[in-house]
């Protein structure tokens, strides 16, 4: 029982971390109908920019930790802004009103470009990242269960960050004028232009926000795993979260994350050994698929309009 709880909690927390990545996807999809495959690469780039600045500022310029940290975040945000600007200017603007699949493909092109560039500039090593988040394991409920239940402080912090981001962004989308405009753009680029919504600015803003979310994800995941290439693969872990929660729902990303995280960890730990292990990744997808069969737009996604 203690172990079950431990796996469950571990899974839920891991799930929230996936949500953090999924959130970036949701933002861009909701706001422009673009399925942004480059989100994983953005996470990597943000983390790399952060960790490199942090290292250099501390080791070479001998700045105090907190100053280096601020500089690191600022610089990483700046890099994200450049990416947002460039994607709008060089890619999206030229592909207005194209089908989703074409834009999707374009973001794959961006993925390659960003990954290549980031690794050229920042190197391909593994960089340990320390942004002051506590990393020690803690054991709770030791009196109740033998050995207690292991939770990781970092995960809890990450969950808090994710929760705050989600709440903020959900409000932003539902309540503000910009939020409404973003949803309009996602529905119909041409019509949005025709009513005077400045696609260019909108896209820049959204990509920037998605970039900042990527920075948050990169900072957390980087602290966990070290900053290196396979952060881009987080995208693949985030996808089931995304489809389960619905591409267009900010809260869906969190709920989806919780379900997927708990589901896959429980499956891996309890079913995995019987099946030879390594089942969590496909289990996550199959789980998402099952939910989709019931609700084809994901749990909280916008209804897919079917009309003639």
């Amino acid at each position, binding site marked *: 029982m203690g172990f079950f709880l431990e796996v469950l909690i571990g899974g839920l927390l891991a799930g929230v971390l996936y949500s953090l990545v999924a959130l970036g996807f949701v933002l861009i999809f909701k706001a422009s109908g673009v399925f942004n495959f480059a989100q994983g690469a953005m996470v990597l780039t943000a983390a790399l920019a952060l960790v490199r600045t942090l290292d250099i500022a501390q080791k070479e310029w001998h700045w105090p930790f907190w100053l280096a940290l601020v500089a690191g975040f600022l610089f990483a945000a700046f890099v994200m802004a450049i990416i947002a600007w460039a994607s709008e200017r060089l890619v999206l603007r030229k592909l207005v009103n194209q089908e989703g699949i074409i834009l999707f493909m374009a973001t794959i092109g961006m993925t390659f470009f960003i990954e290549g560039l980031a690794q050229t500039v920042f190197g*391909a*090593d593994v960089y340990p990242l320390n942004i002051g988040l506590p*990393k020690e394991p803690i054991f709770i409920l030791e009196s109740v269960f033998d050995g207690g239940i292991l939770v990781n402080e970092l995960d809890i912090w990450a969950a808090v960050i994710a929760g705050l981001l989600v709440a903020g962004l959900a409000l932003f989308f539902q309540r503000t004028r910009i939020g409404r405009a973003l949803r309009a753009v996602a529905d119909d680029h041409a019509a949005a232009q025709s009513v005077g919504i400045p696609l260019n600015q909108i896209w820049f803003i959204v990509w920037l926000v998605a970039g900042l979310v990527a920075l948050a994800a990169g900072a957390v995941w980087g602290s966990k*795993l070290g900053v*290196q*290439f396979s952060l881009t693969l987080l995208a693949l872990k985030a996808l089931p979260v995304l489809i389960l929660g619905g591409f267009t729902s900010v809260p869906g990303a969190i709920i989806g994350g919780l379900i997927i995280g708990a589901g896959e960890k429980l499956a891996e730990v309890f079913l995995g050994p019987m099946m030879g292990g390594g089942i969590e990744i496909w289990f996550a997808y199959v789980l998402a698929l099952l939910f989709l069969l019931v609700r084809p737009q994901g749990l909280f996604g916008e209804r897919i309009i079917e009309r003639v």
Partner: protein
Amino acid sequence: QNEQFIPGLVYRTGAYAPNGIPFADGVRDYITMLNERDGGINGVKITFEECETGYATDRGVECYERLKGKGPTGAAYFSPLSTGITFALTEKAPGDKVPLITMGYGRSESRDGAVFEWNFPLLGTYWTAANVAVQHIAKEIGGLDKLKGKKIALLYHDSPYGKEPIAALEAMSKKYGFEFLPIPVPAPGSEQKSQWLQIRQQRPDYVLLWGWGVMNSAAVTEAGNVNYPRDKMIGVWWSGAEPDVVPAGDKGAGYKALMLQHPAGKSAVYADLEKYVIGPGKSLAKPDEIGSVLYNRGLINSMLGTESIRTAMAKFGNKPMTGEQVRWGIEHLDLTADRIKQLGFEGMIGPIKVSCSDHEGTRLSRVHQWDGKKWNVISDWYTADDSILAPMVKETAAKYATEKKITPRDCSKES
């Protein structure tokens, strides 16, 4: 053209790059040094070209096809730097007559040169490694007989590489009576939460780590996260370098790993390296890479390869060698302690003598431990127990031979 072509299959990008880069730099720098210092091997200049495989088998095959015919005599030998690629190339090498040097990796049964004419798992195979690891555990707990009832987990990269030791561990678990618990980690292995939860539940006495690239540092970090004692973890020699522990920060302290004989640090050869390669800025390596475990291993890989060519030249003359000739050279490689010292590798490897029946050449290994700053050698030399391994090799190789309709050579007739 008086040139010997040596190809290099490397990965400097992707999830395995942190480990791939220092190795590749070592390989490259040694060759550069030979060219700069000696003008090549016996006056034959070496041309060297890298090809990026990204540790992907199909790209590895592509690289092989691209490079095997290059240079006046074709590629001297290939070091696929991946067990998966080795498997694929094992099928192709005999046809193309190119030897494969798979130093410390590859097919364990390919040590049987009678069947695997073209494979050379020099310095050790994963079965050797598995055996040595178990020997070390036995020693720590006070003898092979204490293994009974113990639980040993294998946390492995889910690829041919990670699976390679399983057969040997199973055999030993039967023999010594310990419980063997294989736990796969899907590639690339950056996410291991559930595996470590499982370990936390199963509480194995030891965890063997067969990881590569980011999987290693992730494993060490996760071990820290679940408070699994790091000193009860023993990595294979591909999980025992700096990139595997540095990212884990202080969580890495105490972690142990096998050594492919050599430690981190600088042996005599570095003098010449400094002089001819690093000093003049001909190296791609970053300063902290130099003298690291994987960089050293790269040097050794090139040294063994070029010494084999030298051996071949002794028989066939000082001109570029064909793959076939190089193969002969590797098979007759005989590095004595003196020769090794002469080459500047004293303390890096022990004597090695390859033969038709033994393509591995030596089965020695040690254990080192990370103290948070550096690797310290903590054990004596172990020799793998051939009473367990030899029959396995024989049996598996024979099976391969029948499957592929190969008639094994008669090694007693080879000179």
